[in-house]
């Protein structure tokens, strides 16, 4: 059992969820309710990680994060180390890869809130922030929890992009999924089996939470 790899995977999953929570809500609300130029393109870009081979995505991220790119250069100037082959780079990549997993369920949830319910909230004297906190989030939370759980489970399982952007540096970028691959390469099938079972259990648990929670809210308020 590669405990540092498990710790790293959990850390990556938690940070990705924390970052995608506000980003996802903001993006999902905009996509659900606003009409703007280039909306179709924006939705296509967000969905792209679902269909693109992880290696292709990883390759572009590698190029974008590299010391020769403006982004990589700026990051290095600010933080003193490169984005590639670091936990920070892994986190940025993870956020991008998980955009569709987080945003799509949230967007569906926000879309399901009738426009007149939000308008009624404004007509009841609630400020936009109060409308968000008291009406929108309570009504959309099954979608938000679903998005977060999918993000977490998917982050633990992500392989291709992590390998391309992070490599397999123990304690820095070697996640559980990479560690399993490494063990299999070393003919250590026993360790691979343990870690695979653990990953399976965590993923199943995260998804089960999603379905239980969204099922419950549906029953209570029809």
């Amino acid at each position: 059992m590669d405990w540092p790899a498990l710790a790293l995977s959990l850390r990556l999953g938690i940070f990705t969820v924390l970052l995608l929570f506000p980003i996802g809500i903001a993006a999902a609300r905009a996509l659900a309710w606003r009409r703007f130029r280039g909306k179709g393109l924006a939705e296509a870009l967000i969905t792209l990680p679902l269909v693109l081979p992880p290696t292709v995505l990883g390759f572009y991220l590698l190029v974008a994060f590299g010391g020769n790119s403006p982004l990589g250069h700026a990051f290095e100037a600010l933080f003193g180390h490169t984005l590639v082959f670091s936990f920070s780079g892994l986190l940025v990549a993870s956020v991008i890869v998980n955009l569709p997993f987080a945003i799509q369920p949230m967007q569906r949830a926000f879309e399901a809130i009738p426009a007149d319910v939000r308008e009624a909230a404004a007509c009841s004297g609630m400020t936009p922030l109060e409308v968000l906190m008291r009406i929108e989030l309570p009504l959309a939370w099954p979608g938000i929890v679903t998005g977060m759980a999918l993000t977490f489970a998917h982050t633990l399982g992500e392989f291709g992009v992590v390998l391309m952007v992070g490599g397999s540096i123990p304690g820095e970028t070697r996640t559980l999924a990479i560690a399993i691959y490494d063990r299999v390469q070393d003919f250590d099938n026993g360790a691979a089996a343990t870690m695979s079972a653990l990953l399976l259990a965590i993923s199943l648990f995260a998804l089960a939470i999603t379905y239980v929670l969204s099922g419950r809210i549906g029953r209570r308020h029809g």
Partner: protein
Amino acid sequence: MADKGLHVRLNQQRPIPLDAVLDCGPGEMLALVGPSGAGKSTVLRCIAGLHSPQGGRITCNGAVWYDGAGGVNFPAWRRSAGMVFQSYALFPHMTAEGNVKAALGHLPAPERSARAQALLRQVNLSGLERRYPAELSGGQQQRVAVARALAREPAVLLLDEPFSAVDRSTRQKLYRELAELRKELRIPVLLVTHDLDEAALLADRLCLLHHGRTLQSGTPQEVMTRPASVEAARLVDVRNIFTGRIAGHDSARRVTILEWNRYRLETPYQPRIAAGTSVAWAIPTANVLLHRRDRPSRGEQENPVAGRVSEFVVLGDSASVAVDVEGIADTPLFMTIALHAAQRNRIAIGEQVHVSLLAEAIYIMPGEVSGGAPDTAASGTEGKNEEDDAGPAG
């Protein structure tokens, strides 16, 4: 403040054209009436702050809520407007009491429960405070919506087709409740409806809206019996609208002679309309009298007209009869008569009938009719219709 009440002027070209002017005093209920798509809800949404028009001005009790020229546009939550939505738009995750409390943000938290309960009591919902919207009937949901709209102590109450989603018997009950509730309100109340009868029943004044334009405002009686234009007449379901020409005035007999094809009709004296003017005129269906076959009477001297029955529809105790008047093509004259009278006079399609147009009931609409031959009717066969259709019936 001298500027009490609600004053609204709206102008815009897109997305739907608006050219609306309306005023509603404290304690008054103004019904905004028009066909579907006339812009009624848009006007209401402009007042609530849910839609920004391109120009105009909205003031309430002297406070400017919107001023296109001055760049003032308060968001909905800063306007003191209570709104009841067509679908009620209750917050599904809150109880009835929670819904009302949500609009009590202006009160200190400890006072909200008591106030919410008092409001629910006012709309006859005591005992249902803990129910969620999904557990309430349509009528009960509407009452919660009304209580919530009143909770913020609004300066104006806006009702957007509040009775359209409930069944007939519930609607009658809610009408009575609203009439009761109104006695306690000292604010302008705006009711949007496409139902003219509902508007006439509940409102102090009507405002007719068509294609985003306010055509006429007045008491229900005024608007329905004295439409200001052909358009207004169509909206209030006047079926007999024709065009004619003023032939002259008889000052001695105090009548104005209206030429309608080969008929010369006596109408109420209106000397300010010059002879030769083409006008639109109307007569209520109840004021077209059928001559009895068996016993002709003296009343037959009054604007007698002959024709053939082209349509005969029984509606309960009365009958709607369309008569193709001799010399007037394509535009029947409608009359409503008691069913027994129709039977006694053996009214049937194709039968020849003689009728009188009661002179006092002939109403000449202000404004000259431009173009068109004087004897073509402005409208004839159009019944009560929901769709916008400004074109003459063919």
